[in-house]
């Protein structure tokens, strides 16, 4: 166990050192990605300030939700997205077969050896939005609420990693999985807005089959004491449980698909 952990830390170190060789490029990538997101957020800011609310939420509340959304995503995706997005290529070219004969768990190897530090711009933007909005909101800060905020963030990161893992693992049985990321990002974009503005069937989907409502809306509504459709007072606890539950399901699904993997390369 200790040996595996030290190997993973070593692999991460190698990846980070490689990426830091081109520091100016990395910094420009951070800036560019933050600009890309800021463009979308500017549109949301215009709507919320012009109409004074969106689904009953004002700008500081929406800003907190956006910060939570991008930060939770960046923390989860830095360990999974770029690595597992190419899973269908790894399967098609037979590259994944080579990972199976290595003395290390293939998921751990892929995710940790490919850790992506290009999410720095996302993380800075998320921290900026959260640190700007929190002082403007009437949150009753206690040790419990601080822990709730941090644990919900970890849960959102786990949820991101879990869903990306499930999509990546689909390539073992379907052969192709990349188009599923398109569907994931369609729902992921909806998770930037208060869930109550959408029709009830879409709200149910976002809380069950594709549980991206737990990325930002449910935890932030729980923290602010706002009513959450279908969950009510259970919302803060549900936000904490969503990530670990999704991670367990993803771990099971990865093994399930791996058992059925027959290889496609040759």
């Amino acid at each position, binding site marked *: 166990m200790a040996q595996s952990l030290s190997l993973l830390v070593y692999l991460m170190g190698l990846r980070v050192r490689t990426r830091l060789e081109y520091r100016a490029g990395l910094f420009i990538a951070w800036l560019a990605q933050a600009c*890309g997101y800021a463009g979308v957020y500017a549109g949301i800011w215009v709507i919320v300030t*012009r109409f004074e609310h969106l689904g009953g939420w004002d700008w500081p509340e929406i800003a907190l939700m956006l910060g939570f959304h991008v930060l939770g995503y960046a923390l989860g995706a830095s360990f999974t997205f770029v690595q597992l997005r190419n899973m269908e290529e790894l399967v098609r070219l037979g590259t994944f077969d080579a990972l199976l004969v290595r003395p290390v768990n293939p998921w751990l190897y892929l995710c940790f050896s490919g850790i992506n530090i290009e999410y720095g711009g996302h993380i800075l933007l998320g921290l900026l939005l959260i640190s700007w909005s929190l002082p403007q909101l009437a949150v009753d800060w206690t040790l419990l609420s601080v822990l709730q905020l941090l644990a919900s963030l970890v849960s959102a990161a786990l949820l991101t990693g879990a869903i990306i893992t499930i999509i990546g693992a689909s390539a073992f049985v379907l052969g192709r999985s990349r188009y599923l990321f398109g569907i994931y990002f369609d729902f992921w974009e909806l998770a930037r807005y208060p869930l109550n503005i959408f029709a009830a069937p879409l709200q149910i989907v976002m809380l069950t089959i594709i549980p991206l409502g737990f990325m930002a809306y449910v935890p932030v509504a729980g923290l602010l004491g706002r009513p959450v459709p279908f969950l009510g007072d259970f919302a803060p606890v549900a936000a904490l449980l969503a990530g670990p539950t999704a991670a367990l399901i993803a771990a099971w699904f990865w093994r399930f698909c791996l058992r059925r993997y027959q290889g496609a390369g040759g």
Partner: protein
Amino acid sequence: MFLAFALSAFRVRSAYRAQVWAMLFGGSLDVLARISIWTAVFGGAATVDGVTLPQMVTYAVIGAAFLSAWDTTELVREVGADIRSGDVIGQLLKPYAYPLALFAKQIGSRVFDSLVVGLPVLVVMALIFGLQAPASFGHGVLFVFYCLVSIGMIMGIGLLFGLLSFWVLDAHSLEWFMRGMVSVLAGGFVPLWFFPAGFAEVAAALPFSWITFHPMATYLGQEDLPTSAMLLVAGAAWLTGLFGLIAWLWSRTTLRLTVQGG
């Protein structure tokens, strides 16, 4: 040759059926999200800044299913991949202009997306939520010409950012800068008439606003016919300038190109 490239890209696109279903689903979801947002913020208000909710629903449906759906990030990525791998040198040896080939391939892919994804989404959403007709026959005719300017503008902006990759060697970052600028300045998501006054005036004069904002403002009759016609001429002038800039940039690029792959 242009047509052959466009047809080839069209056929390649049609080969991935699962992707088409995913795009149909995603396109519908995008339109639904925009309609939900405008319905939520309008509440019971009849008009906001002289715009009604049915007008905003029309803006969202046509804007999301057709005008804003012309995404050229793929073009920037393709240029970046060609530069990174060194394949661009093979392109330069062939008897055609590389930017023109990129343009043709994008046209093929995007026409496929518009016909197979945009059109069905537009029809279904129009049947469910209702779609306003153009403000007048004249506005409708102008809108058709605006659509051509819109397609030219988004393609030209994509090509410009793609060619800039030859100078900065980082297409990935350029793609994100382009995304950010287009998402705010094109008025694809939020029309410029809701923006703060000074910013809206500057944004309306920039070429990005001919991608979605000016075409939809004309369709909905937010400007009278003479003003719409003048703005169309201004858009065509921007387009001419943009392609002139691309031609100049390409001539400079071929002189300074250093291929590192091989």
